[in-house]
């Protein structure tokens, strides 16, 4: 067994650490404290990160991207998330769909869409699956209710498809320039047999954005509504086969719901960053803050809390790096899903203990501890914790 990183991996890690410390961390609490959810996002940090390669990190080298491996991607996500989990996610969301483009799009589509994505520092990607009344149903389509799941409809008219319906909670929905949209192309077939994936550029006629969701955590990260009213998408933008959305990206190692190969690693690696942040600051605080003339660290209960935070964090790191290593070797197993489920438990417990260490008596709370606790709760919600666990159980069953 060899746990060492190669030079390239190490270099990306250091580059991410520097960018995180110098650029991301200073704006983290500021952006979180902005009340209007449309104003929390900051293009400046995206531009700066993009110039360093963090937006296009997962695009293969032959197409002009950084072509990093999964180990590198995990390292970078963790470093960025240590400075701000939501900003890290804003970058890695682009990697997630870069993987999908690489795995599922034709060369002609890659030419049309990857080139402008690579050239423009403010070109971010998104994927529309969830709808107001279709969340869990897309992830775990019920066998006894074939019509359950997304309702957004696409109908063929000559060389075009006409899209009607709404998507909700879509990451980058209000700021992205290109989206993968899952639409029902056979309303009578179950989700898996009747859904088609389309590439939808932002300027598609008939498409507009709706509200931006106002979340309690991950405030920087934008989740929006997408509204399609007779939106016209050329047939050339169909990804893979008609009625083949789920099978297509399923073939790439996952499914269409974002809980794919990369998505599981992404959430686990991001959670690890929050844990690293909490551990580091908790330790500093315990070494410096005094109570009764003595540093906090001298108290047994503080030591036990620090022990538990670090124990959980290091266990998660082992799991995350193993998954990344397995992905690089194309070893596919339920482990990635299990790691993501585990990261939910770990990030929430570590954030709660961190708050406990920072808390103490009185009627105030450290703003950083408050932010980490709110961010950590996101893991139970945006991917649907119980549903994800059931889905992973399904993979275990085989």
């Amino acid at each position, binding site marked *: 067994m060899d746990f060492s990183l190669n030079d390239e991996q190490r270099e990306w890690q250091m580059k991410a650490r520097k960018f995180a410390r110098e650029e991301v961390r200073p704006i983290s609490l500021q952006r979180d404290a902005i*009340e209007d959810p449309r104003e929390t996002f900051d293009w400046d940090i995206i531009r700066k990160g993009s110039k360093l390669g963090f937006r296009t990190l997962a695009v293969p080298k032959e197409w002009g991207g950084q072509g990093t491996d999964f180990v590198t991607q995990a390292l970078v996500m963790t470093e960025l998330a240590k400075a701000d989990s939501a900003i890290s996610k804003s970058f890695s969301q682009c990697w997630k769909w870069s993987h999908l483009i690489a795995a599922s799009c034709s060369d002609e589509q890659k030419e049309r869409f990857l080139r402008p994505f690579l050239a423009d520092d403010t070109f971010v990607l998104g994927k529309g699956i969830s709808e107001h009344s279709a969340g869990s149903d897309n992830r775990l389509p019920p066998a006894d209710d074939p019509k359950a799941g997304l309702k957004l409809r696409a109908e063929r008219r000559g060389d075009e498809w006409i899209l009607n319906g709404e998507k909700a909670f879509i990451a980058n929905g209000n700021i992205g320039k290109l989206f993968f949209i899952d639409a029902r192309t056979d309303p009578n077939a179950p989700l898996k047999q009747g859904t088609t994936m389309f590439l939808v550029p932002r300027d598609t006629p008939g498409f507009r954005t709706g509200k931006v969701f106002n979340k309690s955590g991950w405030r920087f990260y934008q989740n929006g509504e997408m509204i399609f009213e007779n939106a016209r998408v050329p047939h050339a933008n169909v990804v893979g086969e008609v009625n083949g959305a789920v099978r297509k990206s399923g073939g790439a190692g996952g499914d269409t719901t974002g809980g794919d190969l990369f998505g599981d690693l992404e959430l686990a690696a991001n959670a690890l960053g929050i844990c690293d942040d909490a551990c580091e600051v908790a330790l500093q605080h315990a070494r410096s803050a005094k109570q009764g003339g003595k540093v906090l660290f001298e108290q047994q209960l503080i030591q036990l809390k620090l022990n538990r935070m670090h124990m959980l964090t290091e266990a998660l790191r082992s799991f995350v790096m193993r998954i990344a290593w397995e992905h690089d070797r194309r070893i596919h197993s339920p482990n990635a899903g299990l790691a993501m489920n585990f990261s939910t438990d770990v990030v929430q417990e570590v954030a709660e203990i961190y708050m406990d260490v920072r808390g103490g008596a009185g009627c105030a709370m450290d703003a950083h501890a408050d932010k980490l606790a709110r961010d950590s709760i*996101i893991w139970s919600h945006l991917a649907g914790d119980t549903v994800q666990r059931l889905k992973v159980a399904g993979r275990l069953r085989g």
Partner: protein
Amino acid sequence: MFNLHLSPEQLEIRDTVRDFVAREVKPVALAPARLEAFEKPLLAELLAQASRLGLRTLALSEAAGGAGADNLTCCIVTEELAVGDPDIAAVLAQTAMLGRLFERLMPLAQRNRFLPEFLGDDRYHLAFAEREPGSETALGAHYHRPAVMGLGFRTSAVRAGDKWIINGAKECVANAPVAKLFAVQASTAGGVSTLLVPRDTAGLSARAQEGHWFHGSYGEVAFENCRVPVDSLLGVEGRSPLAEGPDAKGRGSPQFQALNLGIGRAAYEAALAYAHLRVQGGRRIVEHQAIGAKLAGIAIRLEVARAAVWRAAWASDHPEAIADRSLPDLPLQAIARVYTAEAMLEVAKDAAECFGAMGVMRDMPLQKYVQDARVCLHSGEGSADAKLRLAEILAGYRRPAKTGT
């Protein structure tokens, strides 16, 4: 004899408050625009309305013009109010509790001086100003150590003729922004004394506390050559009757645990209702095992917590029950505090999870229930500290009482 019947009066007041919360409080407190806003000003009109229902003077004796409610009744009312708005619940609970305490400690002359105005003004609240900036109240480093904690107060009161002159500063004072009468802990020649200071006294200034890490309305209070008449002492000079705090040694009324319970119950009621409506997986989500078990776990925690809170409340109403060995000689309020705070955060998180993505949206109440429960767990004494205090009591450790410097 073991009897958990509520009296007809207790049942009636619970129904009245529940109805008031459903009809009047929730539509205002849970309006999406208010939920989304970072600043949530105290709902002063609803607070006055609640006062007209008698909830502000709930614990004052009937002879003094109040409702004469015992601690258990106060806890029932506080839980109901907190289901709608923990801030309203906290302000009323503090005023009601201090009202009874003041009435008990005030001699007739003071009662005649302060109580009529208190009774007649729906916006008249009470505050207890104890904590000082920079003061160390955490037990942690002092656990089982004879180190003397929080000795005396830097706020001082000096006798000058027929006046007391108060100088100093207080922080984290519950109800400070809305109080019209403060009981102030100050060092005097003979030790720690408690002085009654009306809000409009020259030299007293109060402002709202920064941040949002509390329920109710907290503030800082400053005293600059603040003069009050010599007969403003509550109790005897140098021997404050509130030296141990109003709920000394974890045996007081668990009203803030009742508030905490209300937050959990609100989350539970929302989740149960939603689980009946939301359809995923071809059926209402309440019919899925995963959601059903979650709801059951929530209900269990709520019932166990309520049992602990009511028992502590009843014990504080019946101290003789410890003497006659009906109840264990334990700080039941401290026990209820630790359990309730930890369990209600779990309750709120599980309830929010039933809502999927909507559980973290600021225009929905679930994320607020989680945050509100977290505030209960991590404010005031803190759970870890409460456990240490309990451990000291179990071990029979006796800490020297607070005295003046």
